[in-house]
């Protein structure tokens, strides 16, 4: 019993913290070298140009120092030699859940993915360790020419398209971790939505790390052609181990004129995962890119979804929430670059710190000299729930055009005693009241999510709030 309690204490209330026995078909030794990079490319039978990019990216990663900003002490703890950079769990990607190995299928069933697919998704891709194990798309979308593949298949089946757009938004030399991802990427999604096609129901990707000391480096590329639209949702979880894992993804979005891409993330990694992700989109004329970004888990998250507003009249929105609990640092934010006239953007960031957690908003907004009549608005709100927790805000605003109208506001506060008193006087317990206040605080975010996700997030937050008072 005591043992069970210890285990529970270690795992906390993290519901996705179980792990399966490891049944890999290919597993690389720990550590990174040019040989590892070439071997990954070789295993996937990639074209020569991709191998070359990988090797160049690897050399850049080795040369490039670690960032000299952010939580440097946590970053320094990453042991790149103690990470597995490739692990294959299934021989091929299946399009029927029954064909997926039992233990992996059970994991995804426990996470509710097949059920969600049946009810309200247009397509699903499920990645387990380094590669996709399941993939499907609704037939009617396929007939309309929508391409929704895992990235490896995307490269095999549409090499010209991948070659044209790969690294076009996030060059491998963008930062140390984009170089790492480009060197060892595996899995992720490749999506192309043809001109004028609207994918009404969201498509979802689910990323699961199972093994210890695992590195997951998926690469996602979404291209929305003229006048099209798509909503992509990603979720992620991992088992709780005493050693650290690394998740370092790169996501590139290309919104061609008049299109609309919404990219929603619920990141719920276990508290031993470093989550160092580069996400960026380019918005062409009159297009719209939205990042809806929830960060609940991980040990250290450094993620700043970005949009380059390249086309006149384009629009960007970043709505994010972050919850930082014990030992966690959520260093999240947003970047928007207004390069064209009449572009607009909005950033809304909400964070909660509790049990010694640290939440940081780090953002950048720029307006270039040639971008006339731009409007942008940034709002950051933070709640610190107890002593020892911390909240930071590091916003940067660079405006080089006199016609721009830019606003930024931020506030850090605690839960007001008056709000608690009001709810408790109406019969709610302290914890219920706090959970309601927190859900209300996150409401601008949850209302942007599909209902099923919003309900799940609210339940998750209610669970996190248990024991916050008293």
């Amino acid at each position, binding site marked *: 019993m005591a043992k069970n309690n210890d285990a529970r204490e270690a795992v906390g209330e993290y519901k996705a913290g179980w792990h399966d026995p490891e049944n890999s078909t290919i597993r690389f030794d720990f550590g990174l070298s040019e040989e590892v990079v070439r071997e990954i490319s070789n295993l996937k039978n990639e074209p020569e140009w991709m191998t070359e990019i990988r090797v160049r990216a690897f050399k850049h990663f080795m040369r490039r120092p670690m960032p000299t900003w952010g939580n440097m002490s946590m970053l320094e703890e990453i042991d790149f030699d103690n990470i597995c950079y490739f692990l294959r769990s299934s021989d091929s990607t299946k399009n029927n859940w029954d064909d997926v190995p039992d233990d992996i299928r059970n994991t995804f069933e426990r996470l509710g993915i097949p059920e969600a697919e049946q009810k309200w998704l247009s397509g699903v891709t499920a990645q387990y360790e380094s590669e996709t194990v399941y993939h499907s798309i609704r037939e009617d979308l396929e007939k309309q020419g929508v391409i929704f593949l895992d990235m490896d298949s995307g490269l095999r089946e549409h090499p010209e398209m991948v070659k044209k757009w790969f690294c076009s938004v996030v060059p491998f030399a963008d930062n140390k971790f984009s170089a790492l991802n480009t060197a060892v990427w595996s899995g992720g999604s490749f999506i192309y939505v043809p001109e004028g096609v609207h994918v009404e129901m969201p498509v979802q990707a689910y990323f699961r790390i199972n093994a210890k000391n695992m590195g997951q480096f998926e690469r996602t590329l979404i291209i929305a052609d003229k006048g099209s639209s798509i909503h992509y949702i990603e979720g992620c979880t991992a088992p709780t181990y005493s050693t650290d894992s690394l998740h370092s993804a790169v996501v590139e979005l290309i919104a061609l004129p008049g299109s609309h891409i919404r990219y929603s993330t619920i990141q719920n990694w276990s508290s031993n995962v470093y989550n160092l992700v580069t996400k960026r989109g380019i918005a062409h004329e009159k297009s719209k890119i939205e990042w809806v970004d929830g960060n609940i888990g991980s040990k250290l998250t450094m993620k700043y979804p970005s949009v380059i507003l390249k086309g006149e009249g384009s629009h960007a929105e970043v709505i994010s929430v972050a919850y930082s609990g014990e030992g966690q640092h959520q260093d999240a934010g947003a970047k928007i670059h207004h390069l064209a006239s009449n572009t607009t953007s909005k950033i809304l960031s909400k964070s909660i710190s509790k049990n010694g957690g640290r939440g940081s908003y780090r953002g950048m907004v720029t307006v270039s000299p040639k971008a006339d009549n731009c409007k942008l608005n940034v709002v950051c709100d933070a709640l610190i729930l107890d002593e020892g927790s911390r909240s930071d*805000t590091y916003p940067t605003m660079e405006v080089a055009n*006199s016609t721009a109208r830019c606003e930024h506001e*931020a506030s850090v506060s605690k839960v007001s005693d008056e709000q608690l008193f009001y709810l408790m006087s109406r019969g709610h317990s302290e914890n219920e009241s706090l959970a309601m206040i927190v859900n209300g605080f996150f409401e601008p975010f949850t209302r942007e999510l599909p209902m099923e996700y919003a309900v799940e997030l609210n339940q998750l937050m209610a669970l996190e709030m248990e024991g916050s008072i008293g």
Partner: protein
Amino acid sequence: MDSASRYLSLGKPNRADHLWRYTSWKKVHPTGDILEMPPLGQPELSLSMIDGSEPPSGIKLEQGIEGDPDFSMDNALTNAFLDASAKSSEWTLVVDKRFSPGKPVILEIRTGDSPSVAHISLDIGEISEFELITKVTGRSEWFGLLRTGQIRNGAIMNDVVLGLQEKGTLLRSDAIAIGRDAQVRAGTVSSGSERTKSDLRYIMGDRGGNIRVLGSILSADSMHIDHHIEIHHEAPETFSRLSWHSACSGSSRTIGTGMLTIRKGSKGADAAQVFHNLLLSESAEADSIPELEVMENDVVGCGHGTANGPIDEEQMFYLNARGFDEDGAKRSLIAAFLNSTLSEMGGAELHAWLVNELNLKLEALNM
């Protein structure tokens, strides 16, 4: 380790640090060779009342500084450089306990024609109540001003620094401790020098300290004006407000970076900062980074904001409709924008004096 050795041991500052993001140390160093510590001259300093009369007893400017300033909380590089460079150019402004002259005091610093530096230590007595204008004028290519010291318990001080140099670079660093229940308005009016790098730090280490940091910045031509302001709340019930207004014209660039920290244990702290930028020409640029680090949950509130925009067309129309021509209306709106922080820097007499100085500058800049 003395200041010179400390400076030389620090090396080149990191551009990833917001303090050095927009203005490299090389550009504001007197020679551009950051390993060099060139000999710098001594400016002329004089103390008078705002009406030109002699200051009363209770305030005096003494040559030399007692002891070594404590820079443990501050920007080591600038302070170490200025401290080491100003060893033969140190003064202490001593203000007696309960000093209350009734009129503003002017500390005029004439930089001369060659590069010079001054280190002024403020020793502001308890429960004193007065206004100080530090006016910097001259044609020097480079001037360094280091201000350190403390404003003691219960003092009420309006402290305005007015930069009116005709050209050159101004490197300024303040490291000032605010005492218990002291009330300080720290104003900066900047409309001179081609390049300014200013690093202002206020430490609220005692309960009940209260500070308003105010800036009225006017940049024109190709000026580059970079102000970094830090306010550190390290005691309970401390209060701070930072309000920074910059009007930028020509191809000038203004930078306002702020850092508010609320250390653990500063219960009941109340802090806010706002940067407002008025962009007056196509090639002007304004950058703001208002940062917050909050390590205490039991605070009254912490917030920040920044807003950039052009002159409001409706306000222009309103003034045009009442007979102002384009230039007159524009000048009035710029003056009103800058005046909103200027008017908070002190009493009526100090304000009238500042407005007069600023109007002269607006005319000189043909704005």
